[in-house]
């Protein structure tokens, strides 16, 4: 497929180019919906569609009003001079959602990463008993339909007073994030050279020191990308939040969910654009980490 040989027949040539066009269309299908929100979020009109003016690139058709709306929506006095910052920090709906998302996301990521990394190291050891069963159990939060997880957590947590609380949501998100941590850390450990830990032990380091000085730096890229996966899982999760959170605990996706259902406004598109930028940043970080990890382990890409 890499390049067309000079002896290719006409039919092969036609197929070669039409196949590339087909793939191009599929890539367009993948990427177009993500790109399209960016120009639409600058629409001056409160619609989800391109206006005449936008297509003619006239300046009046574009504005940043929906970005301003992110911080203003829900404020008591958005035009007041005094106490504007405090008002925004306290009352703006989206600002509260952003605060909630980061609060829940960071704590559930810490919990998921700590527990998941330890478990992955245990699972990667050849002596681990019941490896298959334990792995199946630990990956299952990714497989079980979210609505069942959410309903179960809501039902059980409301009986012990954990529903509608931050610890409850954080625990739920941590459970959902751990499979990703396990998968990424296990993948890093597959190529791990165990003679390094033996060398460290023979030089007199105890297991804890060996872990932090030898093993951890080597698997760190895997741990960080697992943590990023866990964070994005929590950051993007809405089904559990729908059931388990009360209105003041709304996260960004929850706010978007009700925004789409109730009052559809381009503010959602502005938020979506910001989220796309965040996901590009996360993707770039994970990609760099993966390359670094491959380099550290001496596995260069072809």
């Amino acid at each position: 497929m890499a390049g067309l040989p000079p002896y290719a027949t006409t039919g092969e040539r036609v197929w070669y180019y039409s196949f590339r066009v087909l793939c191009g269309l599929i890539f367009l299908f993948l990427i177009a919906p993500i790109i399209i929100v960016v120009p639409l979020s600058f629409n001056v009109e409160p619609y989800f569609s391109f206006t005449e003016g936008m297509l003619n690139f006239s300046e009046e058709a574009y504005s940043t009003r929906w970005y301003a709306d992110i911080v203003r929506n829900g404020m008591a006095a958005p035009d007041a001079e005094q106490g504007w910052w405090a008002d925004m920090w306290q009352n703006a709906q989206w600002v509260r959602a952003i605060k909630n998302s980061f609060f829940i996301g960071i704590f559930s990521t810490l919990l998921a990463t700590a527990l998941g990394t330890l478990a992955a190291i245990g699972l990667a050891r050849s002596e681990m008993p019941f490896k298959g069963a334990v792995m199946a159990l630990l990956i299952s939060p990714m497989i079980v339909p979210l609505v069942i997880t959410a309903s179960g957590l809501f039902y059980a947590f409301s009986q012990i007073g954990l529903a509608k609380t931050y610890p409850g949501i954080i625990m739920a998100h941590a459970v959902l994030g751990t499979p990703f941590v396990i998968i990424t850390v296990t993948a890093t450990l597959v190529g791990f050279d165990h003679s390094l830990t033996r060398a460290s032990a023979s030089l007199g380091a105890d297991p804890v020191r060996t872990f932090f000085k030898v093993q951890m730096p080597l698997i760190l890229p895997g741990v960080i990308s697992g943590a990023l996966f866990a964070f994005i899982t929590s950051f993007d999760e809405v089904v559990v939040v729908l059931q388990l959170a009360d209105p003041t605990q709304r996260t960004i996706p929850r706010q978007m969910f009700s925004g789409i259902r109730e009052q559809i406004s381009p503010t959602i598109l502005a938020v979506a654009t910001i989220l796309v930028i965040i996901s590009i940043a996360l993707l770039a970080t994970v990609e760099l980490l993966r390359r670094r990890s491959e380099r550290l382990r001496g596995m260069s890409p072809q």
Partner: protein
Amino acid sequence: MADITAPGPRRSLTEAPQRSAETSGPLLAADGTPLRRKLRQALFVSRMRAMGLATPLVLFVLLAFVFPIFVLLWQAVYNDTFEDGMPRTTELLAEWDAISDPDEAMYAAVITDLIEARDRERALPTKVGARVNREKSGSLSLFKKTNRRAQRLEAPFKEAMVDLDKKWGDIEYWRAMKVASQSVSPAFVASALDLHYTADGTFEWEDPKRQIHLKLFLRTLEISLIVTLATIALGYPVAYLLATLPARVSNLLLILVLLPFWTSILVRTTSWIAMLQSQGVMNDIFVWIGITADDQRFSMIYNKLGTLIAMTHILLPFMILPLYSVMKTIPPSYVRAAKSLGATNWTAFWRIYAPQTVPGIGAGAILVFILAIGYYITPALVGGQDGVMISNIIDDHMRKSLNYSLAAALGLVLLVFVLFLYWLYDRIVGIDNMKLG
């Protein structure tokens, strides 16, 4: 690993061969214990250590995931609303054969229980009535009516109650109460499958007009299947292109696959609304090209089509990534060899290349199918009427109608199906081989 080598003073190398020649008994470790036992001990310790590392997470997952789901699913077979509200009636109904006419004692028990239940909690008789109503419609109004007059009724209760409402003379209502009085019963699981559990302990099909769940399960399966096939159709060419292009180009193109994977599902669903709505981008393009008139724009969102398109887009990376990782390992020389032996392009692809990609298709298809079958967000936002899936109904019962038992029963059926697929995935692909990006 390190503790297999036993501690203790080391003997010089010259000493060792002599020693093994002298002693013909079991090999001893440095401290005198047999080496076999020492090794077993060391192995035990490292096994414990490995398990100790995994234990915190296992406990966490059991407590914050498995146990809550179990508690909920238990509600599918256990519902004590009736037994709790009407203890005396429950006792008598258990002895009753469900064929003979109910006797005076049973009528009296209903009245005593109703009065007592109302004293305990005002809404309790209504709750009990609602529970019986699930078995036979009309029971709720019967219970409400009887509850209002209960204090004024006098013995003999049988005549008084039949006088109050003829339904009390109908044995079908008593049979419904008998079913409701069994706290542990398959009634809810049966109703999740559109079956009716009768007082005789048999199952019969629900009235066709009330059969909604099987239809929903079928639609969920249908949507998941179409989405899976669509992702194979769209993912296969892309994965093939990525696997055959030089690494530098394919790494760049791979970003186009990974970016949607990292973008919020809400964002992608929102943008599909912007794309597909009647004043949306796609319809604008269609009108501009002339495929359709301005006043006859296609309705592509808030229905099944919208759900299918958005779900295919969201799940496509889950198909491309496993396919790509399988295709990358297929040596291009196989196809070249086939061609040099006289195979046409098609034969070389179909007979040589395609069979080697089957594991990738299997891995991707099962993963996409598992994720699709429990999908909630996209159908809830863009599904409209005919794009609703089973997850949405479960959520409805949990949050709106508060019928936890039915939600649990529907969830149980869905979960059994998903776990079967999960088992299949483990058998075919192996959970260890799951990769991300």
